[in-house]
């Protein structure tokens, strides 16, 4: 993994990136070892660098920044075993969560049977490995225990301890801390922070765009607040922040007014919460803006300096204004205002700007170009929870709004920087990001460029969804780049999409879109053209799948369709593979009306002509039979041709007559 020859140099570079000078620089450039004579003069020229305090993870981060992501390898979290490399989204999710489930099981045993894990062989003892102390009847309930639970974010335990404690015995500071704690988490127990995978897959589930009221009315937070004899401003602040965070805007607004009426000054976090709910407590855009301005003036009056989260809250509130022009003008004004006091926007600010400027039905706006220019120059540090939503939204805008592939690539380069990779958010945002990126490429790029990026991303970094994969195949087919189709087919099988009808449809369509065998490449008899081999593989794959499903009596949504068989037959004829083409026609003949779409008449004609060429009257009769069955107009001319140009024996003659007989009667009837 770490065979980089320049590793030392890289680490060195990283560690001293922020230092003013490299250490031990001799200005004179002479030898480092001082000789006796010049010692006194040399020492004056030594520049001793300032001491740079290092955190415990700095050296590790420096080392990590030297390792780039290897697109040819599965993610680090998966087992390094060929049989356990996942390709489909489902497998990726299952494997990762299964591994975590094992970790959870171990954790559970550690908790349930803590007495088995009493050995302490590390000195000093590593607290993270200690089994958690269980709350039992005999556990001494103290205020310190409550503080500990608050600090480690164990909500259920903290609430339990608080309930057991004598409320008079709790100090006001702890009570305030507990109120903030309960308000922040809204009494919901939190996922153990060690379970990275579960959080990675879970966080995408909840739609964060819509504000839903999840605040527990008359819950513990309000009870704690009411139990306070003297309501402090901090208590008001905590309650207001909690309500605003969990979507109870009206309640937060009431307490805010109550607080102001009592003459308390809200703090910065509270002001930020008020900006966030400004759009809900004031319906009208004009009033909303007035409320924002008024609150800002209050802050100025109180001497509270707004920070970047203030900016983001204001922009979030503006992004909900439905009138495009108003939202646009106000947001730009706010940006200028905050620039004047030196508050730089974070990625979250840009996220809301995109929401304001690039609306679905609004005019096309190029604000993202300016944002990317800025980000390439300087990446703001992580400051707001909304920061992680930026990249997915920006790529969505690139795809659906601007359709700018160059910009999308620049954005992707930004994300690929080692220090930015964590900003992707979670699995849901990641899949939105890559979906939009790949969809944009399918529309804007030629097959070579598209496939280059496709190979880079798929399947280790991203597994395309069905629709995205279809778009890729269609894009390749549109340019008749048939030579890519075999690769796509093997990917489809690899990603568990080989049994989906729509995927098979587009793949076969793509295969048949070519112009036939390239006479230069196929010289050897044994060397089968990959396109033809793919067509045979698909046929065998589907047949096999259907057979297995039938044997096991399993219902399957996959069926042969007329267009699939048509494309196959067309391809086999193109490549002169008569036997396979015959097999297809036999399939058509047996399935007939069970086919969900018609076998294309053009291909049928082509096949028929080849039958006549080969004097294969049996197959020709089958083709005629199908044509008659489906009521194609060509059937009569085909029959005529058969009589004239084919040598039919008596039975075949008879059959032809019977086929034609049925058509003439049907045509008379109609």
């Amino acid at each position, binding site marked *: 993994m770490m065979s980089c020859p320049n590793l030392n140099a890289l680490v060195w570079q990283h560690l001293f990136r922020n230092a003013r000078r490299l250490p031990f620089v001799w200005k004179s450039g002479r030898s480092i070892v001082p000789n006796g004579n010049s010692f006194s003069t040399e020492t004056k020229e030594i520049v001793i660098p300032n001491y740079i305090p290092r955190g415990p993870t700095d050296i590790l981060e420096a080392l*990590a920044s030297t390792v780039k992501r290897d697109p040819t390898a599965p993610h680090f979290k998966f087992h390094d075993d060929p049989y356990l490399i996942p390709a489909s989204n489902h497998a990726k999710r299952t494997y990762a969560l299964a591994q975590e489930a094992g970790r959870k099981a171990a954790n559970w045993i550690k908790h349930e049977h803590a007495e088995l894990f009493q050995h302490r062989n590390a000195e000093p003892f590593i607290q993270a490995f200690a089994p958690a102390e269980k709350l039992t009847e005999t556990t001494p309930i103290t205020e310190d225990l409550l503080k500990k639970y608050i600090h480690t974010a164990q909500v259920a335990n903290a609430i339990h301890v608080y309930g057991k404690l004598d409320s008079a015995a709790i100090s006001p500071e702890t009570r305030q801390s507990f109120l903030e704690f309960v308000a922040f988490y809204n009494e919901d127990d939190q996922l153990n922070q060690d379970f*990275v995978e579960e959080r990675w897959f879970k966080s995408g589930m909840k739609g964060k765009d819509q504000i839903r009221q999840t605040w527990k009315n008359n819950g513990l937070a309000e009870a704690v607040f009411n139990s306070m004899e003297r309501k402090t401003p901090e208590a008001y602040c905590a309650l207001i922040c909690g309500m605003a965070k969990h979507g109870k805007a009206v309640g937060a607004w009431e307490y805010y007014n109550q607080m102001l009426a009592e003459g308390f000054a809200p703090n910065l976090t509270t002001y930020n919460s008020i900006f966030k709910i400004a759009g809900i407590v004031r319906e009208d855009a004009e009033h909303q803006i007035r409320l924002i301005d008024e609150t800002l003036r209050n802050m100025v009056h109180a001497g509270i300096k707004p920070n970047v989260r203030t900016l983001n809250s204001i922009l979030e509130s503006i992004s909900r204004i439905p009138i495009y022009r108003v939202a646009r003008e106000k947001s730009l004004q706010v940006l200028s205002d905050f620039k004047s006091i030196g508050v730089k926007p974070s990625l979250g600010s840009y996220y809301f700007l995109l929401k304001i400027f690039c609306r679905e039905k609004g005019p096309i*706006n190029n604000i993202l170009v300016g944002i990317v220019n800025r980000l390439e120059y300087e990446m703001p540090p992580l400051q707001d929870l909304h920061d992680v939503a930026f990249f997915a939204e920006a790529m969505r805008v690139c795809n659906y709004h601007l359709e700018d592939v160059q910009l999308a690539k620049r954005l992707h380069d930004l994300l690929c920087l080692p220090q930015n990779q964590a900003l992707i958010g979670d699995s849901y945002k990641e899949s939105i990001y890559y979906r939009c990126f790949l969809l944009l490429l399918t529309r804007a790029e030629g097959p070579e460029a598209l496939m280059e990026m496709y190979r880079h991303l798929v399947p280790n970094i991203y597994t395309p969804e069905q629709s995205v994969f279809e778009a890729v195949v269609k894009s390749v087919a549109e340019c008749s780049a048939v030579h890519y189709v075999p690769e796509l087919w093997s990917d489809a099988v690899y990603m568990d999409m080989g049994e989906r009808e729509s995927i098979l449809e587009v793949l076969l369509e793509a295969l048949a879109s070519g112009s036939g065998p390239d006479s230069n490449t196929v010289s050897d008899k044994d060397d089968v053209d990959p396109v033809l081999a793919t067509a045979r593989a698909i046929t065998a794959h589907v047949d096999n799948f259907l057979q297995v499903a039938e044997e096991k009596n399993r219902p399957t949504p996959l069926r042969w369709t007329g267009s699939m068989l048509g494309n196959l037959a067309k391809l086999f004829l193109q490549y002169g593979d008569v036997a396979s083409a015959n097999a297809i026609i036999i399939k058509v003949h047996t399935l007939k009306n069970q086919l969900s779409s018609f076998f294309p008449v053009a291909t049928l004609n082509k096949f028929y002509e080849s039958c006549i060429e080969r004097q294969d009257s049996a197959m020709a009769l089958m083709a005629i039979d199908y044509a008659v069955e489906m009521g194609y107009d060509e059937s009569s001319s085909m029959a005529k041709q058969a009589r004239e140009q084919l040598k039919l024996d008596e039975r075949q003659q008879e059959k032809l007559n019977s086929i034609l007989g049925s058509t003439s009667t049907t045509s008379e009837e109609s």
Partner: protein
Amino acid sequence: MFPTSMATSIQNTKMLLRRAFSVKRNEILARNLCFTRTLNANEDQDKSKKVVEEKKNKAELKEAKQKEAKAKLNMLLESMSKTTQKAYPSESKLSLATPKIRAKPAKPVKQPVFNTKIEPEMLQAVEDVSNMLSKENEALKNSLIAKLEDVADESERARLEPFKPNKQKTEDLNSLLNTLKVDGKKPKNKSPAPKLAPVKIEDMYGAQPSGIFSKAHFIEESSAVSGLATWDMLYEKELELAVTHPPANGFHQMIQWTKQGKVWQFPIDNEQGLDEEAQVGFHEHVFLEPHLKPWCPRRGPVRHFMELVVVGLSKNPYLTVEQKKEHINWFRDFFEAKRSILIDTGAIPDITTKSSPSLST
């Protein structure tokens, strides 16, 4: 090059007509109009054909768009040996060099039209002219037509010169075009144009500030201390969790473990986490004799034993100083309890002769 030759040929026709008959100018103009209208009609017809072909031969069409490429191909064509001929589907025969641009001259596909040499309208015009100058009616008409035919031939030849559209060549060109692998860049699927005009933002900070902050005096501490310590702590925690993803390599894994407190931290330090021991000096571990001073006799078997104990303790790395002291004190209490026996055996002097219980003199 085509338009110029075309223009000159038309010019020639005009001059010829003027010189020969000195007819009224406007009449000629009218005739010219006639002529061009036919041309246009032909082109339109051709155009509709092209649309059909367009889908079939995208790549070829694109190729055809570029005049230079055409000229190059032509040169290539000339240099090609006849042996490389190939039979190609007939549909590609028509696909040669069909530009979209209307202003371009007609294509070799229109050859049939020009094979009639002179169009009926033109013939009619000639008829009309000769009728007007009724004298040498027939002779004039014939010579006029002959001239027109000459001009038509010549202009036709000039127009098609770079193409040399004989069947052989056309097929060669087709074969060449078919073997070319053209990078088929697809046209973008344009979404329906939005109703509103695109808005360009040159500078994000271009707007005039509202001036809310113009006279603001902020108390610096206020932004640092929000007054909700727990809330801020929890927010920071959530922020960190938002960028904590499954580790991407071994170093990331170690970073995560370090943050969770599961591995020792860098920089390497053998005494990491031994905070209590750090408070205690080395000498307190090693020099334990002062702890004997208050109670131990200065000489005798007890002293001798206790010195051995102290030496042993000073070399023991596993006990804390507190434990060592405790150990010593245990012996003190032990000897205290066995005092009578010790006195009897003479291990320590009698209590009556020495006042101090510790017997330290």
